[in-house]
């Protein structure tokens, strides 16, 4: 019998915390909000065991994200987390982090919205996450795990991506992933080579003084700064785009789904296959950069792209943009915190599959 001694049964929210600590995160700032409270609770204990560990329960989300900015500019690996309404409040700080080109890891355990919404799992923050979310021309790298193991792997890598590109990285999961328990190992992580942090403000000892700012009053310099950011985002698009394909080789119908919705969809795809339907799954792992290339490539053999989201339809826009009319798109969504079953999704898939006469 194989010994999985390095695996621990852990809850998604605490997996984020442990993965962060093991990736060298020493600072956490946050404000309580359901369904992610196990994460700050875990960090409040765990960071006392870490050298120079800092945990502050801030007075607001605004304050938390700005403490993140301070710790980041002081050179630390730093994280904050929240759920939808709290992430809305953090947008000001995220815009500043991007303008100042500072690394940070931000976790959004999405809940149903808009407004106070509810505390059920949802995917309705896709637009906010992938379009920047705050003011100005910027992008945040968005990682969408679909299991506790992937939460561990992506969280650890998130710190490297953030440091490497000097840009915030957002982990976009939901209440379901945050609350579920699965066996997890933290041994998959291979640290990247990170460039020296030549922007850190720690007192101008033996070097000229430094300034960290996003205020650029000269429009020409501001435009230059924006183009510099855009060139960085292009590099990220080239290097960091990630997705999973499942049973796509001969698929006539491709389900496109991420995170929790992708797990549900995978169950539906397996059932569809056992019913003889040529159905596959494309699961974006990075939501920004979005895996447009593979979707466009698959359009040559796939007749229908079936987008399934736990929202009223957000990622479906990116699928349409990727396809540029090359193939038909059908959307099925359940917003508001509803978690559909694989059987429900299968029913819709088979109806589309046979209505479009994909079954030969």
């Amino acid at each position, binding site marked *: 019998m194989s010994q999985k001694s390095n695996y621990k049964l852990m809850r998604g929210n605490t997996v984020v915390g442990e993965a962060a600590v093991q990736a060298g995160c020493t600072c956490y700032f946050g404000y309580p909000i359901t369904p992610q409270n196990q994460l700050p609770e875990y960090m409040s204990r765990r960071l006392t065991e870490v050298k120079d560990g800092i945990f502050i329960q801030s007075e607001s989300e605004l304050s938390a994200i700005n*403490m993140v900015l301070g710790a980041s500019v002081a050179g630390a690996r730093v994280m904050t987390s929240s759920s939808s309404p709290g992430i809305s409040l953090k947008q000001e700080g995220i815009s500043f982090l991007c303008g100042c080109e500072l690394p940070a890891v931000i976790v959004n355990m999405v809940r149903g919205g808009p407004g106070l919404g509810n505390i059920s799992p949802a995917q309705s923050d896709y637009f906010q996450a992938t379009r920047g979310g705050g003011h100005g021309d910027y992008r945040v790298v968005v990682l969408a795990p679909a299991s506790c193991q992937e939460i561990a792997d992506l969280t650890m890598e998130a710190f490297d991506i953030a440091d490497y590109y000097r840009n915030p990285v957002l982990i976009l999961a939901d209440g379901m992933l945050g609350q579920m328990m699965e066996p997890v190992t933290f041994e998959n992580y291979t640290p990247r080579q990170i460039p020296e942090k030549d922007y850190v403000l720690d*007192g101008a000892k033996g070097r000229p003084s430094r300034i960290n700012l996003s205020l650029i009053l000269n429009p020409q310099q501001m435009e230059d700064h924006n183009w510099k950011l855009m060139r960085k985002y292009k590099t990220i698009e080239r290097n960091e785009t990630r997705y999973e394909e499942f049973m796509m080789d001969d698929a006539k119908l491709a389900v496109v789904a991420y995170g929790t919705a992708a797990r549900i969809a995978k169950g539906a795809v397996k059932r569809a296959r056992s019913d003889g339907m040529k159905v596959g799954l494309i699961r974006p792992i990075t939501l920004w950069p979005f895996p447009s290339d593979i979707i466009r490539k698959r359009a040559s053999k796939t007749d229908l792209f079936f987008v399934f989201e736990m929202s009223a339809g957000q990622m479906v826009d990116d699928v349409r943009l990727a396809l540029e009319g090359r193939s038909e798109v059908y959307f099925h969504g359940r917003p508001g915190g509803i978690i559909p079953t694989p059987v429900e999704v299968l029913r819709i898939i088979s109806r589309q599959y046979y209505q479009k006469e994909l079954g030969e």
Partner: protein
Amino acid sequence: MKKVYARPKLLKDASMHYCPGCGHSIVTKLIAEIIEEMGLADRSVCVPPAGCAVLTYNYLDIDTSEAAHGRACAVATGIKRVLPDRMVFTYQGDGDMAAIGTAETIHAANRGERFTTIFINNAVYGMTGGQMAPTTLVGQKTTTSPHGRSVQNEGAPIPISEMIAILDGAVYIERTTVTSVSAVRNTKRAIKKAFTAQMDNLGFTLVEVLSPCPTNWKMNPLKSCQWIDEEMTQVYPLGVLKDETSGAPDREVANAD
């Protein structure tokens, strides 16, 4: 010939954007002098948030991080916690400190964060063109209180320093001004004391400086100084609001009784 005064080394060779008669330039120069005198040039980090204060990084030759409007105390918290042996200070105006950043200010003080806040109170929003500030005096005309601030509509001026003084985390709070040579020297003493208390790891320190804004007050510089001495100090009395810099042990003794 004996040299009695020189330009502080930590003032960059740049002309300031501040209007003639503005108090900011005086305080900025004082900070440069103090950091130099205390030998903290290579250990200091300044956090100026949005407003007239933000361009401080063009003048002070030390590590400086801009902060969003109102968020200086949160940014400074992050920096100081990561670098506890550095001298960290925020340099904020009244709108930043007592309106949009009230929560950040109060809670940083309450946690006893070991940084210093230099609070420039000129009773208006300066950079945006003279709108009403939380510290605007009753009856004072601004671009958004054209008939004068009324208690009924806008409430009374917020005594933010007094509010902070009641918090255990704050150890030293003093209100000064820059309307005369002796007042400037007194402000220098107060800021130096705050920086020293911070480096002694005592708690949150704050110096509020009543500062002229001739442009937005529509007064000449002399009249502005007169207005501070005669009107502003009635609402914001000068002096030490709290000093536990030598009293920290006393508090323990008092508690022991």
